[in-house]
């Protein structure tokens, strides 16, 4: 971010005149320690590339079976959506909707919003309503829970291992990769860099 800008710490409201922050470094609030700026080298490009990768992985993760379950000769393969549908049919609509939002809808919207913002920016353009989209992106972020879902997969596999043979499908590897891609994507994006680029394109 441009040095000399004045900003308020989002955790304690203290005003700061930002020093020049080198790529890969972090500027912290001197009072409460919150990260004020954390620019990364080629952060914008990196985040865009990772968001596109994430979209591909998310589509794969939802189109292929993620776990197979073999018991006494019977094999059952499931998509992620199978579980959600099953919950829905068992009168657990609220839980089904929550799982759908946290594992499919939120990550999908998050990645699409990122591409929508970053791709035009990279081409020196400005996407219409970019800041509104960004606002929604920030709202959605806490509800995207791929990494927690992965822990859920691991626990389930161990839980069922005694009962039957579990065959991890293509989708579970996609999930695994997606977690790292999503985390790296969010880590390489400093929102202030986006504002800066946006102002430059104006």
């Amino acid at each position, binding site marked *: 971010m441009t040095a000399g800008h*004045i900003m308020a710490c989002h955790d304690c409201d203290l005003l*700061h005149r930002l020093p020049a922050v080198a790529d890969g470094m972090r500027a912290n609030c001197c009072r409460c320690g919150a990260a004020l700026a954390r620019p990364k080298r080629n952060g914008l490009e990196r985040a865009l590339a990772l968001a596109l990768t994430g979209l591909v992985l998310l589509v794969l993760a939802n189109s292929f079976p993620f776990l197979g379950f073999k018991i006494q000769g019977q094999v059952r393969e499931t998509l992620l959506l199978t579980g959600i549908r099953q919950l829905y049919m068992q009168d657990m609509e609220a839980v089904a909707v929550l799982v759908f939002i946290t594992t499919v809808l939120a990550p999908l919207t998050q990645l699409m919003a990122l591409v929508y913002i970053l791709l035009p920016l990279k081409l020196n353009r400005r996407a219409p309503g970019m*800041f509104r989209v960004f606002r929604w992106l920030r709202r959605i972020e806490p509800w995207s829970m791929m990494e927690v*879902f992965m822990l859920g997969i691991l626990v389930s596999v161990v839980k069922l291992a005694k009962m039957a043979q579990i065959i991890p499908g293509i989708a579970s590897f996609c999930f695994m990769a997606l977690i790292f891609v999503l985390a790296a994507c969010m880590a390489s994006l400093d929102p202030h860099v986006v504002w800066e680029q946006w102002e430059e394109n104006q």
Partner: protein
Amino acid sequence: MSPAARTAQTASLVSCTVCHLLLRRRPAASGPVGNCPRCGAALHARKPNSIARTWALVIAAFIFYIPANVLPITKVTSLGMTQSDTIMSGVIYFVQTGMWPIALVIFIASIFVPVLKLLMLLFLVISVQRRSTWRPKDRTRLYRITEAVGRWSMTDIFVVTILVALVHLGALANIEAQAGAVFFAAVVVITMLAAMSFDPRLIWDVKEPQDECEYPA
């Protein structure tokens, strides 16, 4: 800008909570100040009714936590035998069968984290209400922890989803979700909303900012 460190509020400024744009506030306005011209988010000097909302959500979460733990979350039917499991009985089952790492994961994610998070929020809200000046930096850190750990409580809900999807083999073996899962999901969502409605800047509002900063704005 005066040489002493100031907060946005004392300088009659308001910082957009979403895009961090800093704006001048009309002197009379103390409530909502309109919308951010850049991202359209509603502008507030502090999150509206932060303390009341956090209290309400924390209490609601405590209430839902009881049925979430008392009612069964899954029902397993295998060859004519049915067994209902609560969160705790699942943990006990894993301990008894020697799979203590899994028992630990479920115990931490489903029982320990929600309670810990609620107690931490309770502590933060009460300390703010009592205008405590005790270690604000550590309390802010505590707030960041409550924000970060809450999501991991969803683990058990995801496990139920996966079990329900996989173990659906008619008379041979069948797992169904039960009412406890709904309450538990509600606890997770409510505690996340509670953490979001708390404003950590309230912790600092009782402090005079001059004394601790070396490079003031």
